[in-house]
């Protein structure tokens, strides 16, 4: 085989893998942003539900899940089923199980993951005044997290993609 073609193929593969690595980093940032945005929308939706239509929690979760495209959908559907069937014990336990099984902390980052776990108190409580307050706080907190994640994605996402491409070109230059 012509050594030039061999080098060109190797260079192409190097470039592609570096570029894809950069793109996957960007995608992870985007996914994190989308997850937080969907949680935020769900909390805002539940805020309305608790004060207006008063849909039971399992139904609100199912309706909320229908609007989601990320892992949040799986979390909500899992929790909704446990709540509807009343087989998961206390809500805190149900929520923890759903979040650990269907989401995983590597997708969201530690801070957001803890915020998601702590939101159990806002989703279900026996004190309505406190629950509304917690829901409102939760929505505010997720609004901040979502804003940070969006900024991260906008700034670092493009950077990762460009760095990946640059790294690929750099390696090609070295090998050639």
């Amino acid at each position, binding site marked *: 085989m012509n050594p030039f073609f061999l080098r060109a193929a190797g260079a192409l593969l190097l470039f592609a893998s570096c570029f894809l690595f950069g793109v996957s980093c960007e995608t992870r940032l985007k996914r994190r942003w989308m997850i937080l945005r969907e949680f935020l929308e769900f909390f805002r939706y539940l805020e309305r539900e608790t004060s207006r239509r008063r849909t*039971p929690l399992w139904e609100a979760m199912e309706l909320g899940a229908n609007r989601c495209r990320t892992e949040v959908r799986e979390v909500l559907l899992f929790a909704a089923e446990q709540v*509807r069937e009343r087989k998961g014990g*206390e809500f805190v336990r149900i929520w923890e199980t759903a979040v650990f099984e269907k989401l995983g902390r590597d997708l969201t980052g530690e801070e957001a993951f803890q915020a998601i776990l702590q939101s159990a108190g806002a989703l*279900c409580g026996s*004190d*309505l005044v406190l629950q*509304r307050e917690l829901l409102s706080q939760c929505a505010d907190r997720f609004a901040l997290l979502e804003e940070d994640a969006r900024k991260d994605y906008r700034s670092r996402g493009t950077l990762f993609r460009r760095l990946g491409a640059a790294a690929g070109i750099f390696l090609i230059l070295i090998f050639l």
Partner: protein
Amino acid sequence: MPGDDFFGILADPVQNLLIKGGIQREYLQEVRLRAGSPLFLRYQNREISLNRDGQPCRDWKDAYRIRMEEVRETLEYLSGYSMYAFEDEVKQGYFTIPGGHRVGLAGKVVAEEGRIQCVRQISFLNIRLSHQILGCAEPVLPFLIQEGQVSHTLIVSPPGAGKTTLLRDLIRLISNGVPGLPGRNVGVADERSELGGAYLGVPQNDLGVRTDVLDGCPKGLGMTMLLRSMAPQVIAVDEIGSERDAEALENVLYSGCKILATVHGSSLEEIKKKPLIRRMMEGRVFERYVLLGFSPRAGSVRKILNGQEETIFCGKP
């Protein structure tokens, strides 16, 4: 029976206690949970408390004490994890759960300008189990039928003697129809969700195939709405007596519709002290009075009287 749905709505430690104690669901009438106080049950018409091993104890000081977390956990299960869905009911101090069971609650009330805004820190629960006794009204119904028509009937009984249970079964029988009385359209104004035991709008008790239930609506308003919208032949209402019901009752009485009602009281003399009931009795509005008592057991029919207050049936003493 242990393990049936009802036990599942109690906090795990309480549930385990009842199962260990061999408490049977069909004999259980009431469960009282008070944070920091012993667990009390009304079981086979007696109040009992259970110790840590689930055994009945004579001295309540030895009884298992309920913790606040258990009250909260029970509330989660009772409300299907959705206390907010019962906000209006909670303001009135009770809500109904699947199975028609009533949950009374107490805690810190937040009021504004004399109106209850919400109940917070709920730490007292009284779960009254719904016991629909199918067929309990069968011996009574023949006395309430005159010339193929249901009579205007007032059921009189002290609290806990079974007037709601009897009324519920009368509604079912009249609605489904019995020999000598074809099924009638029955409208039920169920202000406190006791008759239908509705959960999220669906009655949990069998009220018959021709029954329309207006759930959670004030009695007076409910009777008027039913009359206008559902064309009932019989209207049933629990615990009348307040002046607010008077106008609606009059509308029902003069519309060709029959009324089945209940009132708290142990005798006719006692209920005559209520102005509305006295006026109605003096006007010979009711054609039948059914008096219930506790002897020989709760729900026993003591007497049935006609409109002239003459005894037409006398129960066993």
